[in-house]
């Protein structure tokens, strides 16, 4: 544990940008756009699958105020992916900016750029498109071997083998096995088998997707984008537009939420194309309907689970078989698929064999993409539901079966290549959670007055912290001429507060007050490289990069101060913003050092830069407990209480960690109880407004209570791990389990709607 007392780290410091954004200061993409920017609208396909036979834009182009209309004839012929991933991306290059084939309702057909929205919409109506409608693939369970092939084009490529078989509509196949699962299962006394269907979920961030582009004084393309991944957007645009990356600058201002959605490109490429064609500033803002139906969602999946346990209640085999619906394009298809096992199988390590296999398939629906939890959410729902079932079969308390089987500190797990677990407080999380929720008194159910029954249920989960051996982050810190520090980072704060917590870490190491540090982030011209905020990377990787840079800079300041004082580096310390001689006369202030190094004859601006990547991705943990009340007359489920106990290592900023946890839990509650992306039988999305797609409002969430059980992760900055994603995973299995414990209805298809519960109860009678 950390022994020295810390001044910045571990304190609930308000976010450095908090007051400004709360007060509505202009800081987001649209606020920064030039008023004369062209307004873009996209003509979208009304068909789930079709070829464009002809497209006539001549009438539309005559509308006064129309600047240009672009179709598939006007775009480069190089396929790319919108997935924001490190190069070489594991997502297939399966899109063109516009194509003469449309693969889902909402796929882009033409870009209209005009002086204002009204003009663009008027022109859109005058575009004539003739389609040859094809038979779409809508049911993902029938995609493999379907007579229709979603991607029949010859020029689709992958950077490496992800198991793509496009003629069978398979984007990616994955198999990982350790030990002989079938054999171990055969020897198990207890076997549980079940199938679960986590649904497609919409990110529904409050700020819809948007991008503003212009050419600067050197003719470079500047893209101001509401994105989580500015560096990836830059590379993506270079490929899609076939221009050198050096000609592109991407700036991420404040962004109004992402949740993984903004790890995939959206309108940037359209605005950029228009700016390149016209030389004029352009802006694209997706409306809410487009945001729901023309971007990405969480991957819907079918997950078959088989669990085997011995007579003593030890889980000996886990077998997962996954089918993942990636929709019309393969963004994040292979990686979300593999993460289903990556972030579930290591939970339990008394196993003798584990396996995950599966396919991600193309269908003619909106693409799926990255979404907070990234496969772990779906895998956790399936695995934890099965573990709850196993507990019942074994007549062991669900909390006890976990305590008996979870991986402990210093232990290895089958898929872990021998790496020992550096930190875990999951056992404490489980114990604390069951105490907080009143598990002993409430498990499994209590009959209330009227027709109400209450039940409790639980689940545990893990995630990673960054992507081992792939994710890297860089940070640079400069002592500025005014004696302050400029912290340059590529990490992209999307409300999560990373600009603040990274400053806290820098301030801690440099031993200066937080207000002496100012952050410049998320600009590909001035920030050092960072893949962006995803994969729960920022605290863990960027945090460590910041610490390394700060330590180096501090060394330089001490050395320089010592030099000015005419003593050796070992004879000085840093204290009260000055370099002082130990036990003797003489000190020089930071401001003076800055002045004398940078100005006048110093000729030496002190700065340090560091890059950090990790060979491991230490897991944060959550134990989640739900108490629900089911109305047996209607099947309605009310969430009464949700307790989540989190191990994210050291909390760098407890308040921000808590809010992350509360927000993630509520997003998970939405997934468990309300949210579902649904399509008509022609493949048109039916849930494209907040009227049809319900996200939790204040009245829906009952009481959400968060507690922390800190561990100390030796490889993390100040012992920290991640928190951003892990918090989204427990509500689905815990709530489903609570409903089961209340009324005996096991829901396999999320979300848990009153209809499903009611109909199942009827069947039981």
């Amino acid at each position: 544990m950390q022994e020295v007392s810390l001044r910045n780290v571990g304190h609930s410091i308000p976010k450095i940008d908090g007051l400004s954004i709360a007060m509505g200061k202009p800081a987001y993409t649209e606020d920064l756009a030039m008023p004369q920017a062209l307004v873009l609208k996209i003509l979208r396909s009304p068909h789930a699958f079709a070829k464009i036979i002809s497209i006539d834009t001549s009438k539309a182009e005559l509308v006064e105020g129309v600047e240009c209309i672009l179709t598939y004839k006007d775009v480069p012929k190089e396929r790319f992916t919108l997935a924001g991933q490190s190069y070489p991306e594991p997502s297939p290059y399966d899109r063109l900016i516009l194509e003469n084939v449309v693969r889902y309702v909402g796929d882009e057909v033409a870009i209209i750029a005009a002086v204002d929205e009204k003009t663009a919409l008027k022109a859109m109506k005058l575009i004539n498109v003739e389609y040859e409608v094809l038979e779409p693939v809508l049911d993902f369970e029938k995609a493999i071997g379907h007579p229709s092939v979603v991607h029949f084009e010859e020029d689709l490529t992958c950077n490496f083998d992800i198991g793509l078989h496009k003629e069978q509509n398979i984007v990616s196949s994955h198999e990982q096995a350790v030990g002989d699962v079938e054999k171990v299962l055969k020897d198990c006394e207890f076997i549980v088998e079940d199938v679960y269907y986590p649904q497609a979920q919409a990110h529904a961030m409050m700020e819809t997707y948007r991008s503003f582009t212009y050419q600067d004084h050197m003719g470079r393309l500047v893209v101001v984008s509401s994105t989580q991944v500015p560096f990836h957007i830059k590379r993506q645009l270079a490929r899609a537009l076939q221009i050198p990356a050096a000609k592109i600058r991407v700036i991420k201002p404040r962004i109004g939420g992402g949740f993984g959605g903004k790890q995939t490109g959206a309108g940037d490429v359209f605005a950029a194309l228009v700016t390149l064609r016209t030389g004029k500033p352009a802006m694209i803002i997706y409306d809410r309907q487009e945001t729901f139906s023309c971007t990405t969602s969480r991957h819907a999946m079918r997950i078959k689970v088989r669990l085997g346990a011995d007579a003593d209640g030890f889980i000996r085999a886990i077998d997962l078989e996954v089918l993942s619906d990636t929709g019309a394009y393969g963004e994040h298809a292979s990686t979300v698929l593999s993460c289903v096992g990556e972030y579930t199988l290591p939970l339990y390590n008394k196993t003798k064999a584990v396996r995950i296999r599966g396919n991600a398939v193309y269908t003619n629906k909106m693409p799926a993409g990255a979404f907070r939890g990234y496969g772990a959410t779906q895998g956790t729902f399936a695995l934890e539901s099965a573990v709850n079932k196993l507990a019942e079969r074994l007549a062991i308390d669900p909390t006890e079966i976990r305590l008996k089987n979870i991986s402990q500190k210093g232990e290895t797990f089958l898929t872990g290549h021998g790496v020992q677990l550096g930190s875990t407080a999951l056992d404490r999380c489980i114990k604390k959670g069951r105490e907080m929720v009143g598990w002993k008194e409430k498990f499994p159910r209590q009959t209330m007055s009227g027709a109400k029954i209450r039940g409790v249920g639980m689940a545990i989960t893990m995630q990673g912290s960054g992507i081992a051996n792939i994710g890297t982050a860089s940070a640079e810190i400069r002592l500025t001429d005014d004696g302050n520090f400029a912290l340059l980072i590529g990490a992209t704060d999307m409300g999560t507060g990373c600009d603040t917590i990274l400053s806290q870490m820098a301030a801690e190491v440099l031993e200066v007050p937080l207000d002496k540090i100012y952050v410049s982030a998320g600009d590909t011209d001035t920030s050092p490289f960072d893949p962006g905020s995803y994969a729960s990377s920022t605290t863990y990787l960027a945090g460590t990069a910041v610490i390394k840079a700060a330590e180096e800079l501090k060394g330089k300041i001490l050395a320089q101060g010592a030099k000015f004082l005419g003593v050796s580096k070992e004879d000085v310390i840093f204290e009260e913003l000055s370099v002082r001689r130990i036990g003797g006369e003489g000190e020089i202030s930071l401001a003076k050092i800055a002045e004398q190094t940078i100005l006048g004859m110093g000729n030496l601006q002190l700065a340090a830069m560091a890059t950090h990547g990790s060979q491991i991705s230490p897991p944060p943990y959550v134990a989640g407990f739900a108490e629900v009340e089911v109305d047996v007359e209607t099947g309605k489920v009310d969430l009464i209480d949700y307790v989540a106990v989190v191990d994210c290592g050291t909390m760098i900023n407890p308040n921000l960690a808590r809010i992350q946890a509360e927000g993630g839990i509520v997003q998970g509650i939405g997934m468990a109880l309300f949210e579902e992306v649904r399509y008509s039988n022609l493949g048109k999305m039916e849930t494209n407004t907040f009227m049809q797609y319900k996200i939790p409002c204040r009245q829906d969430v009952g009481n959400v209570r968060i507690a922390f059980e800190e561990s100390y992760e030796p490889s993390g900055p100040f012992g920290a791990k991640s928190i951003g994603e892990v918090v989204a995973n427990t509500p689905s299995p815990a709530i489903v389990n609570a409903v089961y414990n209340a009324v005996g209805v096991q829901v396999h298809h999320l979300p848990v709607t009153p209809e499903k519960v009611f109909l199942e109860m009827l069947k039981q009678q």
Partner: protein
Amino acid sequence: MQIELIVNDKSVTWDIEKDEFLADTLRAHGFLSVKKACDTSCCGLCTVWMDGKPVLSCSILSMRAHGKKITTIEGVAQAAEEFAHILTAEGAEQCGFCSPGFIMNVLAMKNELDNPTEDEIIHYLTGNLCRCTGYMGQLRAVKTYLGVA
């Protein structure tokens, strides 16, 4: 057409289109605190006051604001900041996109309700969606602000 109205205590005369909505008109005139997050009057982000009462500016035709007093967060900066400090002390502004509309409704509630219960607070604010925070931190901030338990 032209409308005359008072925005944040200043009289203004604005040229507008007949089918323009107030949220867009306000943004076009530099009141960039006014955010929009839906097309269906569901999210509350666009909340401003009309004659002192909270309204959804995305669904009010600008011509209906003729002769009215409109207040945005810029017009009640001092009171808003008092609450915003409490909100940020909780960390309950994450992306912040929902915050201005939320704050306008919180201030309106303070004017309207005396010592509201937790249920009344939740009920009053339920139209203000937030996808980031999970609402609990906002509730803690509101209770601190109102001095209710």
